[in-house]
């Protein structure tokens, strides 16, 4: 597969865009605040079984959970860094999305705030129509509806759902 110059993996970029776009669609349109929150949310979307356990602990209704089968294999692995899951590609994804005008990234006192632009929303809506992206889009929406929490709280929920995560050593794959 040819690697294009500074075109980070399109799939990863799309997944991050889905998340940012979903959170930007909330009534207060706050987007995703902070890198750490973005990493945790991406972890949940990439590790569907962990996401299902977390959602059950968050008392999601069975009807909503079973509306779409979001289970599956791990999309792609992340590594443990400091206090939680991390992927260095996130910086390239967001840089590329920002450069392409698909997201806005502003630095505030709370940290980096990511919001989708109208062009970014257009792209996600276009991709969501494909069967391949239907499940992942649904995961992003569930994250928006039930997991719009602080990075710290998301970390606690992840470990609660899968204590093995806490045993992984730094820079090792989860």
């Amino acid at each position: 597969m040819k690697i294009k110059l500074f075109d980070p993996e399109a799939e990863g970029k799309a997944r991050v865009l889905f998340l940012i776009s979903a959170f930007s669609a909330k009534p207060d349109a706050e987007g995703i605040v902070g890198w750490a929150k973005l990493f945790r949310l991406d972890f949940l979307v990439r590790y569907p079984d962990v996401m299902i356990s977390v959602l059950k602990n968050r008392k999601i209704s069975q009807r909503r959970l079973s509306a779409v089968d979001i289970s599956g294999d791990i999309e792609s692995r992340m590594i443990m860094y400091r206090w939680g899951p991390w992927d260095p590609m996130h910086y390239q994804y967001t840089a590329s999305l920002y450069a392409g005008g698909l997201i806005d990234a502003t630095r505030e006192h709370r940290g980096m705030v990511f919001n989708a632009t109208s062009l970014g929303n257009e792209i996600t809506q276009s991709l969501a129509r494909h069967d391949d992206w239907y499940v992942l889009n649904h995961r992003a929406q569930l994250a928006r509806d039930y997991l719009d929490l602080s990075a710290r709280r998301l970390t606690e929920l992840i470990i609660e759902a899968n204590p093995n995560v806490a045993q992984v050593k730094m820079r090792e794959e989860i």
Partner: protein
Amino acid sequence: MKTRIRRIQLASTERNIRFSPGLNIIYGPISTGKSQLLRLCRIAFGAKVKGLGPEVRGIRDIQADLEVGDFEFRVYRPLTDTARELICVSWNDHELLLANEAKPYRGQRYSEWLLGVFGLPVINVPSAPTRDESSPTPLSIRDYMMYCSLPKEEIGSQVFSHTHPHKDIKRRYIFELLYGIYSAEIANEQSRLREVRHIRANLEIQLRAIEAVYDDLPWGTEEMIVEELSRLQAELTAVQARKIETREATEQKSGVALLRSLVQHLDHKIGELHGQLGEYEAGARSRALLVKQLKSQVNKLSRAMTATGAFGRIRYKRCPVCGSGIDDSSRTDHLHCQLCLQPASPDEISLREFADEQRRIALQIEETEELSTNSEEEARRLRAKLEVVEAERNELSRQLDDKVSSFISDREQEIVGLAEAGARMRERVSTLESALKFARHRKEKRKRFDNIVEEENSIMESLEDLRSDRGISDTRIRMLEQEMSSILSRMKVPGFLDVRDVWINRTTYLPEVGGRQFEDLLSEGLTVEVNVAHALAHQVVTQKLGLGLPGILFIDGPSAAFGDDGYDPERCKAMYEQIRNVCEDSGVNVQVIVADNRVPTDFSNYIRLELSENDRLIPDIVSG
């Protein structure tokens, strides 16, 4: 053995008394310390610290220069007998610390060491002389020193403490040792006899118990048990053989053997089929997992393709590195890359690559699924076959059970009978084996007992032999009698006493003079004379014959027995002359120390220490 005390010094006083070889006299009125001095001298030779008067309380220790044979040494002897106080012995450049008689003993005791210095044997003797097996008691230097001392409380009434039961036993042993009636060999034999009799007593008890049990049992002798056991074992073997033979023959006849063989064959086949099926099922699981993973890859590729397609139309509005705006219109056309300005149409290439990869994976999925289908068919076939084989096996097993049941019912009585007979025989065999073991144990114990009895008899014979050889001892005792008679004849004893007739009782070893035992010598003066003559005779004989008795004699108050009324100075002088004669006999070499308050004039030059009311042995200021 030549023995001498050359000097004795009392600590905390100025008393430093020197003695000469031969006769030494300590003169002084009563209660001036003469007897105390003799006791202190005996303490220097290993006596226990007792019998000392209160005036001695202020004396911490004594120091004495002693001589035994050619060995000269100095002893520092504390006048307490607590375990902490050690006795120091020194000679030339040597020094030795020895324990006293207080327990717990801290190393070798002074009294034991002195035995070695005198060359006397260390012997344990039976505490009851008539019972060789009685508990042993050691002979110490103090027991030998009994023959070297006539204390004032005994000189007129006892011969070397003979009226004290325990001391009398020791006195007699010392006599026997000195005069060859007893020896270290006899002591060893007695010790062995004690041991053997103890073992015999234990064996006797054990044997009695074993015999009591054995007699009550109906087993008979060991030989009878062995014979019965052989017979039973042969019978048991025959019964077991008959049982197997009956079963095999019947099985063959009824077809049970064949059925059993068939069932076993089918069991084996079922096991094989299960194994094969297991392999197929494991393979199917692996393939299912592979297909799942391949499909997941396909999905990922699809997503990658769609995403690439979606992002491919996006033109960068900002530099992805620094964030500056990009003026898209002037940089390049749509045929060139907006960032690197190179001609390319990478999206199609990468999209094509994605599609190729997808196709390849799809093909792999197809192949895997086809393989799974074939494998599943084979597995189905195996399951069907397994079902058939299992059904056949179950049917044969049922037939076998039926046949075995009927076989058992036909032969039930015979089989049960054989089994019961076998069980009875095995039980009997087990009982007889235990009986045999017990019988052998009894035999062994009996044998051991017989051996011990034999050993005991052998030791008793040996003891009898050792004791029967009285030749030398009789000679020595006769010498003693003659010497005593000779000494007495030179003393001015009363004429009614026939001093030619001196006899040492061969049982009590006490002197009898003129047919009279010691207790029958009514006059105290006479008992003193006899006692002194007896003690001197022992010294003469033992020193001349080298029998080991320490060549020193302490005599306390010989003249006191003569009384004041009717005091016969000539008799006293005659006694002193005999003492001096013995001391000056060059063949004897004995030192005698006499404490007396009345000394014949001719003997004043033998006085080594004169005490008085104003010059006691221990001044009042020291005694407190």
